């Protein structure tokens, strides 16, 4: 008897085997939620030091996932609900390492009584980002994106209970739900057009259709709008500065990187089938100019408003907006013809480096906190160099890396994007490269202000801040990687290249 369905069944049964690192993370999440409430009193108090144990468990889970990731099979599978290829491999690596850093950043930001939930959220978010890369189906993709969003609300809400945090949490919640709805609407239009939620099948359906895919265009516009919210691309950026300002530094660190990673991976996943399937049709003609404008506006608005900020986290929020603009350049270039280097390669490289820089910067801000009160204004950094020379040096490295100065990985990352945009040869992309240069110069002004405050001004008081080890470990690790990646970029670059050659 022939077995036409055997492949189907086995693709369903073997799906669990493709997500073992994520299952480890989610299993730990369940343990945290199950055991967590039993270790706190009804009023939310717990043994002092409980957060160290939960942090340790989170690190153990991530390290297990990292081990499974490293030793796991690299066989490419493109059917079924999950798709395993080199992008998945890359995203898993980047996200797990980022999660490790975020656990360290979050370590001292959370009360003992809330540590279990907070770390569980972080692990769930990590699994969600990996699942975004794994998703081979619109439904899986949406669920994965929600697996990031929902724990994020909680993560933002948990650390402190002042009005600003609550406002930030609610703001993020409402706007995120709104953006999810927009994206879901877009998904439904694409589903209506293609008749399936399976991404490869959508690609085939689009390629075979003789009509102009109006619905697909409309759907993609909605999807890009929904994802642009996560990326904080202008005009969907407006919540970012308020939320960054209101939430604890660990929440801001998470927001500054994780949604952007997920958003870009989702965009790459969605644009590839949709845009590539119909290159001559209207789809590419609509999507690419849209991304082009999105990129340009995002860069300029981010940097303009960044210059005006006095609040550190607002400034870093706008800096993130500007960096998204740069990364969108890579996305733009990547979907033109093949260029050397490829725009997507440059984008993936930039994402990893950007994660290191921005998480590192927030780690330093946490390490420099005084009496567990977050650093707010630029003035509070004045003379940090005198009080905590090591922290000042590391923050300087991150700022120069964000500004794209050598000898930091930020320089090479920008260079790659820049080179990709220019080498591609299209006039519109060369304009993007030009805009990137203008913006890099503009952006360097506010990064320089931070360095200036730390080094060129006298400290306001001789307060030394906390000496909690976790954020310091995170920032040292980030500094080391940011500088090492300048001198030995090859290993990350080779990883990125294997992603694209698959």
């Amino acid at each position, binding site marked *: 008897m022939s077995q036409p369905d055997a492949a189907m069944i086995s693709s369903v049964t073997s799906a669990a085997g493709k997500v073992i690192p994520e299952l480890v993370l989610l299993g730990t999440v369940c343990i945290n939620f199950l055991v967590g409430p039993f270790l706190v009193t009804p009023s939310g108090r717990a043994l002092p030091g409980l957060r160290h144990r939960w942090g340790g468990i989170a690190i153990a889970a991530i390290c297990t996932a990292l081990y499974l990731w490293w030793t796991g099979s690299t066989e490419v599978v493109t059917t079924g609900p999950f798709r395993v290829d080199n992008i998945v491999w890359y995203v898993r690596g980047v996200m797990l390492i980022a999660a490790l850093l975020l656990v360290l950043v979050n370590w001292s930001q959370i009360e003992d009584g809330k540590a279990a939930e907070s770390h569980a959220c972080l692990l769930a978010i990590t699994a969600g980002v990996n699942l975004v890369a794994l998703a081979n189906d619109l439904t899986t993709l949406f669920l994965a994106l929600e697996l990031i969003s929902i724990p994020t609300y909680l993560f933002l809400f948990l650390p402190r209970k002042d009005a600003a945090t609550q406002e930030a949490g609610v703001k993020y919640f409402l706007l995120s739900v709104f953006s999810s709805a927009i994206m879901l609407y877009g998904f439904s239009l694409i589903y209506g057009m293609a008749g399936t939620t399976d991404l490869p099948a959508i690609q085939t359906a689009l*390629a075979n259709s003789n009509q102009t895919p109006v619905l697909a265009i409309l759907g993609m516009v909605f999807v890009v709008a929904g994802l642009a919210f996560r990326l904080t691309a202008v005009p969907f950026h407006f919540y970012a500065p308020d939320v960054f300002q209101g939430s604890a530094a660990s929440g801001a660190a998470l927001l500054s990187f994780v949604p952007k990673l997920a958003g870009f991976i989702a965009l790459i996943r969605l644009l590839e089938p949709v845009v590539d399937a119909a*290159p001559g049709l209207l789809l590419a003609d609509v999507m690419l100019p849209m991304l082009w404008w999105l990129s340009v506006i995002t860069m300029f608005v981010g940097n303009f408003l960044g210059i005006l900020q006095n609040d550190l986290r607002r400034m870093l929020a706008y800096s993130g907006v500007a960096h998204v603009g740069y990364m969108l350049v890579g996305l733009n270039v990547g979907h033109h*013809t*093949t260029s050397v280097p490829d725009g997507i390669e440059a984008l993936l490289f930039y994402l990893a480096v950007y994660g290191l820089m921005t998480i590192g910067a927030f780690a330093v801000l946490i390490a420099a906190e005084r009496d567990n009160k977050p650093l707010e204004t630029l003035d509070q950094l004045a003379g940090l160099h005198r009080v905590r020379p090591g922290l000042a040096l590391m923050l300087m490295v991150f700022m120069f890396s964000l500004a794209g100065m*050598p000898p930091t990985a930020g320089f090479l990352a920008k*260079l790659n994007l820049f*080179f990709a945009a220019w080498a591609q040869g299209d006039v519109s992309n060369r304009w993007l490269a030009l805009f990137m240069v203008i913006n890099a110069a503009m952006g360097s002004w506010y990064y320089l202000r931070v*360095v*200036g405050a730390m*080094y060129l001004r006298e400290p306001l008081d001789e307060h030394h801040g906390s000496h909690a080890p976790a954020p310091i470990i995170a920032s040292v690790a980030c500094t080391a990687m940011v500088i090492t990646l300048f001198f030995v970029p090859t290993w990350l670059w080779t990883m990125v290249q294997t992603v694209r050659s698959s």
Partner: protein
Amino acid sequence: MTTLVFAMLLLPAIAAVLMLVLDAKATAARARGFALVATVATLILSWSVAYQLPATSQQAGPVTTRWEWRHTWLTLASPAPAPTVVNHEALSPNVIRGQSPEEPKNTASTSKPQDPSTSRSPSGDFINLEFYLGLDGLGMAMILLTTGLCVSAILVSWSEIRERSAEFYAGILILEAGLIGVFLAYDLILFYAFFEFTLLPLFLTIGVWGGPKRRYAAGKFFIYTLAGSLVMLLGLVSLVVETQSLTGISTPFSMPDMARALQDQPLPVETQTILFLLIATGFLIKVPMFPFHTWLPLVHVEAPTAGSVDLAGVLLKLGCYGFLRIAIPMLPDASLTVGQPLVAILAVIGVVYGSLCAYHQTDIKRMVAYSSIAHLGVCMLGLFALNAEGLSGGICMMINHGLATGALFSLVGMIHERYHTRSLTDLGGLASRIPLLSALLVFISFASIGLPGLNGFIGEILSLLGMFQVSAIYAVIGTTGVVLSAWYLLRMVQVGLFGPLREPAGDHSHVSDLTVREGLAIWPLALACLGLGLFPQTLLNLIEPDVKALAVIYYEPDEVIVQKTDAIQPSFAMTNSTAIVTSDQAVETISSIQTGERR
């Protein structure tokens, strides 16, 4: 040799890191002692490298190295051929576009990989960034200048810097490492990286230890030069892309390889022009040429003495050096048709304007800063004469201006330390109080003016001679710069050193003449000025092969270039007779002038 070069590059950096890590709270005495040992050791290393440097290079080409070390940094292109298109065909074999390959509206993504004319790199798909360190005569001369000036910079900061000493000296050492790196880098991106990196220590040096408006000055310096460099980066990247797509070399970032490839297959003139303008923006700001000079006086006035010495002595030369390394060899047509008139006009404006401004300053440091603008104008006139004399003259100017201005800033710093003012309205007749220091100031001023027998003369005469062959009018206006520099420097000497003694209010009985430590800082520079004035041949011999290799691009295929020049810029037409001048002839001319002088 390789070990020595690496020791020379890394020693200051390692010393700086050690200082910061082990002894961040060091007393001034300990920090400056350590820094002095490190810089002197670097100086010795650089001289031993110079001693071992071969006299000529092995390869041919406009940019050559006599020693090199290459190591792949980043391979940009993917080794596999474009995969996406292949996937397409496999995934959807009956798509519409696949059925009509002849259709002219065929999209680029399908047609490109099959079309051999548009495939990007015939020699394989690798485009390498490299750690490419190399040395030639020009680089060596600049490194010797750097290491020498850094010793002086440490010595003049001896008592000026009282707080955060370890960090200050570490900053100077890191700056030194960065500068040596610039002159060693033969990869465009590595060059750019070092070029940018030098901004950071200088920014902090000015911002932390500078004068009252230091923060504004440091910020302006940083943003101004960074903006320029970013435009330059745009130019460099597009230069690489254009070269790579034209010639298909696999190491388009390497300056010698690129220069060789472009010598055989030059870029179209329009492309060259755009690239030249982009790249020149960064270098013109760094030099700085006339409309981009506004950051310089401000920064010099606010910078501590050591910062001024390094800034005027070496950092400004990075602009000239960049033109010599990148714009002139890679973009010959644009340098000739656009660069020459543009730079010449800006340079003569700079010479006259800088001199007049210098004359009207009462602050000596500001005056020296403006004189830098004028002198570098002469230097750029020489470089953009684009013949052997002009190029050698320009390079001599770079070295000599570095020595003389470095020494001038040191002396001004010493006077400022004694009187806490640099204003000519407060100071006068100092020769009677501090005779030795005044004598040295007179001597260095003469060197800066370009008195025959001192080093300034050689550079100025060769530069102007070179420019004269191209266009007499620019050379004549440039020559006024020499006269004007005599005017303002001698006025400074006259008012400040001679005449009745004038000191600012207060007790100045403790003011002493040149101390031993200050002497150690200034005497070597003064002797170098004299030595290079008497024996310019040593320097000219060192740079001769490089200058020859550069000048050859402009005068080998005479007719072509001259015709092109005629068509576009009639005033710059030159006859073949004046054009064919080799460096040997230039050297002969100089030595005859020198011997006549000494008689």
